[in-house]
């Protein structure tokens, strides 16, 4: 099975203190460390497991700049067969639809049986997977937490209320958005990355993708970010300002005071 996984590099929420910048139009980006978006990592792992089971290859792709190559390299170290970076100045400022448009062009250049995305990016809005499927006129299943491949189709499940699962059949080719927890992604260490250091990662521009630059980028974006702000403290809300221990004690006290602990 030929599998494409669309990935994205994001600030790692477990290793950063996310704060808004002074202007309020972005987060503070000094001292940020980045990694692959977590659900995307699960998507790559799932793709690798499917490939190892039924054969085929795994390609990872991202839309971004030079810095984004590092996540592609990491996924190659994980075991992806090849990677491609879709990069062009014209892509800057794309909204969800713009990103989907770029990815669509890449998909059309090649042949894939299965396209995976993470369920959503840490800094995204869970739009790209669905839009990409619609643009390619392919079936789409979201929030997938298990995949069973069989001839020409897949059985996929998603979690519904009460921890139950709903099982769906879907024809190949298709697009799936992958939920975290679907598997246990393998570890990628420095040694693994070093071993794929010389694997070439091609960069494809708008021209390479035969893409009209006017359909993507800032000018084509219909959803525009206006502002970032911290919500105003509402009535009844209380923000604890003490040390970790003090806060923990305070929380226990408060819950107990309201009859939450017996």
């Amino acid at each position, binding site marked *: 099975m030929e599998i494409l996984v669309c990935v994205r590099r994001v600030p790692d929420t477990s*290793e950063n203190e996310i704060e808004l910048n002074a202007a309020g139009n972005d987060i503070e980006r000094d*001292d940020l460390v980045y990694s692959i978006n977590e659900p995307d990592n699960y998507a790559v792992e799932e793709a690798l497991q499917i490939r190892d089971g039924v054969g085929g290859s795994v390609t990872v792709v991202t839309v971004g700049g030079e810095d984004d190559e590092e996540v592609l390299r990491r996924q190659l170290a994980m075991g992806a067969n090849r990677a491609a970076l879709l990069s062009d100045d014209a892509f800057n400022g794309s909204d969800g639809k713009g990103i989907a448009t770029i990815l669509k062009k890449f998909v059309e250049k090649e042949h894939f049986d299965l396209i995976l995305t993470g369920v959503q990016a840490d800094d995204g809005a869970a739009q790209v997977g669905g839009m990409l499927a619609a643009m390619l006129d392919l079936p789409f299943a979201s929030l997938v937490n298990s995949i069973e491949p069989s001839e020409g189709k897949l059985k996929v499940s998603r979690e519904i209320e009460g921890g139950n699962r709903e099982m769906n059949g879907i024809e190949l080719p298709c697009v799936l958005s992958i939920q975290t927890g679907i598997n246990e992604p393998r570890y990628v260490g420095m040694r693994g990355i070093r071993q794929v250091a010389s694997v070439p990662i091609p960069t494809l521009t708008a021209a390479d993708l035969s893409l009209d630059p006017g359909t993507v980028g800032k000018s084509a974006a219909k959803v525009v970010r206006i502002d970032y702000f911290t919500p105003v403290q509402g009535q009844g809300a209380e923000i604890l300002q003490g040390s970790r221990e003090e806060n923990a004690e305070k929380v226990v006290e408060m819950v107990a005071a309201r009859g939450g602990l017996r």
Partner: protein
Amino acid sequence: MSATLITNWFVSEFGLLLSIHALGIVCFFYILAKRMEPLLRAERDFRFDRPLVRVGRLAKYWFGQWRHPRYKSAGILHIVIFAGFILLAARAFSLLIVGVSPNFVMPVLSGPFYDLLTDYAATVVFLCMVIAASRRIFVKPARYQVPAKYGKGHPVDAVFLLGLIALLMLADSFFAASGTVSNTQKAQALQEVAPYSLPWLIQIFIRSMSPASLALLNATANIVHAITFYFLLCYRPFGIQFHVETSLFSVYFSKLDRESLKPVRWGVAEDHLDEVKSFGVKKFEDFTWKHMLDFYSCADCGRCADNCPSYAAGRPLAPRFLTTKARDYIFQHYPVFGSRKESQPLVGTIYSEDEIWSCTTCGACEEECPLLIEYIDKIVDLRRGLVDDANVPQSLQKPLKALESRGNPYGKLEKKRADWIKAKDFQQSCPVKVLGNGTHAETLYFADSIISYDERMQSIGRASARILQSMGEDFGILGTAEKDSGHEVRRFGEETLFQALREHNTEAIRETGVRRIVTSDPHAFNALKHDYKDIPPVEHISQAIARGVREGKIQLRPLSENGKTFVYHDPCYLGRHNGVYEDPREVLDAIPGLKRVEMERSRDRSFCCGGGGLMLFYEPKEEQRIGVLRVKLAAEAGANTIVTACPFCLVNLEDAIKTAGLEGKMTAIDFTELVDQQIERPGTVQEPEFETAIVGD
């Protein structure tokens, strides 16, 4: 029986013995060659250096049986059996030769005195076999038990072997007794067997036998002896008794530098590791020949498991079974009859992942093993194999990734690494220099990640700084230039990441131009001391404080409040791995009014707190927390305050006090925090930072 008959019998006995010898020796060497086969396919291991040191260790640990008395009854029993064996080995050889060449006289180990000695040796060994077999049959010590998940125990095998040795002793004694009686009857010489020995007892019963019967008895005893001897010789390589042959080599080739870890690959320089295709142990043949030899040598005495904190807490690991499963693997894959079987990956077949990650590398097993069998290197090698196959528990992936990108396992910002010195009151009373950019100092205080970032453990850093200040040390920290020492990174098998961290720190340390390094974290201490190269000498702060107390650089105030009973918990990487047992105790005892007790498990038998570094992130499968077991040991010792000298121990012990429901009854405090409180500082008001930690109830 006529003389001819006896002669005929003698001839046939002679022929029979000769055939037994030939057959026995051929079989033994065939089996030995088969057992050597995996060792020849193994990885390299450099164990041929420092022969004098090795011979010395042989004298101490093998010949001297140094570690056996750590378990009194079993240990003494073993020493007696061993001594008997050594004495009898010479006799067995001479007996075997006498059988075919009656005039042979063993040089040195012969003569009436030696005969006397061996008579007693045979008697004592025989009795030991009876006692040992009864222990196995009736007493059934818990440490010999094998839980079903680790395979089957070998009680029948053990008793059978003991029986065989007893038979050997009996045959030996019958031979000696019948020979003596026969000689006395013929009045060839007046011979005496040792009074009250086994041959002496037998002699009483056979004294009136006819010469012919005596000759027959003598010959039978001789043949039974020879058959039993060779049967044992050939049977031993099929089980735990093989250690009789292999222990000599295991001890001779034992690891000399116990503190340092085995390199990824012997004979490959660290900067050439990229050329090594596969790291660690994945299949059996990835073990080194010495590690395979260990598998043969293990006598399955269970002492390692008996001291293993992971096993005690019900984690799926016991060092003993790591070995016995590997030995069973050899027996299956390198059969004595038939050809070698295809090798398989070890993890997933004989070992489980949880088993390999469960080890805290505390070293209790290695401290205990009478045959100096190594475990930490094997565990780390197996982990290297797992890491190389991208097989790392989810709980460890985040901290490892954070160590790579941020230099600490918590994923905290690098620029906040020195924030612990900026605490309000502390900064004014004890300003700490951040070295580099023109700031110099004599001594570097290496904080490491947990003391730098963990709110509770930062107190250890500040206490240490105040102590160093009181001792008049000119010291500073690396600040944001410091990264995690990588101690657990290496021990969890991530060698490449460890080397990157080490390279960074080494450069940062060398740039400061300091003359010495002090740390409060035994893990950092162990890493800097043994894993790093070309950096100034390193001390744990307890060593520096002990010296300060001895030299009178610091005075300790009497402990004001009473009702406290202290107990010192030895951190594994300070005590067992680096031999620092007395310095912290000496300082504690220098505090007037401090009442201190010892736990049953202390010093080199200290019981791990649950493990430091990455082990804090790992989610083991266990029945209970290791720390809880430790806290209960402290309570049993009658203590209500545990003093330790390691931030990780403190994390685990403080947690365990809560988990064990001992809050209010028991407290834990770091050694530096206690010393900081008790230091006499003339002209200043004493304001300990962690009053609650010591005041407790």
